[in-house]
């Protein structure tokens, strides 16, 4: 194999060329039950985390044009929340590398009505098919840890944002409350894959999800990466003791 660079796939090291395909298989396998599984596995907490994320993103409620690129937006969960919170000027482009996740998203979108607009595109977070300085906000929720080159995805986020535009990321992070740590370990290594196996018939996709969370940089290190990509005022907020964190930065 010519490519000797490796990337983490959960705890396994796989060649960089392999990682994306393996991640895609995981998500194709779970697309239709993705949100349901999130509910089960987070005990409904993911809804609260997403509410906090949308509150922080603060989409304008008027008719002023506000373009959002929701990357790894798959089933549309984040996009629909943005559309519900904002006014008629909101336009969300839902981007995902996995067409199965987007098809699921479109199906769900057609069952609802929104004041704002939305569209779908299959695109790689590392090689976005959008013009420079186009979006007012870039959101990525539970997606960036699945990207092979996170630094490249951050650079692309910076490129497509307008000056004054904001990068926002919701992602699993590192628990910083010792008492919670042991509980969280026990839960995520045994309970999560077990639920995954019962509901989708396969524990492997969920084992990957759990392991990929552990290999993702902690709050501080990820904030440093955001700064390195060019963003100003990178900051983070830990939620539920650091189980997840909201990171943000501005293109100025």
């Amino acid at each position, binding site marked *: 194999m010519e490519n000797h660079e490796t990337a983490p796939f959960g705890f396994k090291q796989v060649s960089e060329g392999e990682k994306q395909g393996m991640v895609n298989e995981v998500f194709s396998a779970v697309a239709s039950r993705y949100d349901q599984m999130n509910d089960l596995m987070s005990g409904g907490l993911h809804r609260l985390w997403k509410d906090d994320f949308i509150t922080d993103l603060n989409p304008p409620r008027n008719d002023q044009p506000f373009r959002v690129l929701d990357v790894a937006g798959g089933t549309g969960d984040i996009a629909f929340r943005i559309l519900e919170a904002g006014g008629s000027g909101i336009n969300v482009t839902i981007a995902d590398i996995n067409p199965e996740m987007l098809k699921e998203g479109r199906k769900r979108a057609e069952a609802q009505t929104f004041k704002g607009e939305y569209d779908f595109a*299959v695109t790689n977070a590392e090689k976005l098919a959008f013009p420079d300085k186009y979006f007012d906000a870039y959101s990525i929720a539970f997606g960036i840890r699945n990207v092979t080159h996170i630094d490249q995805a951050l650079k692309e986020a910076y490129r497509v944002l307008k000056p004054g535009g904001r990068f926002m990321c919701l992602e699993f992070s590192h628990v910083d409350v010792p008492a919670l740590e042991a509980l969280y370990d026990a839960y995520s290594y045994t309970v999560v894959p077990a639920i995954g196996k019962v509901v989708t018939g396969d524990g492997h996709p969920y084992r990957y999800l759990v392991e990929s969370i552990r290999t993702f940089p902690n709050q501080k290190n990820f904030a440093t990466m955001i700064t390195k990509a060019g963003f100003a005022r990178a900051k983070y907020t830990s939620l539920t003791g650091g189980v997840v964190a909201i990171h943000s930065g501005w293109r100025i």
Partner: protein
Amino acid sequence: MNDTTDQTKDQSAEKNQLVDPALLEILVCPVTKQPLSYDRSTNELVSQAAQLAFPVRDGIPIMLIEEARDLNAEPQP
């Protein structure tokens, strides 16, 4: 609303093949970041600069380099 009896195509399926025109206007080539042109006959988004044609499947543009057709690979059928 098409009532013609010789209509063999499922209208909703056909509608699903069409890309949102507003999206067509903003998409750029993921390689060169240059504008694309839409080829109605093949339902592809063509990047002249990269010599790649990106497919549209079920109305969703697939802007992945590994899924694109190389315009130099072989003559069009």
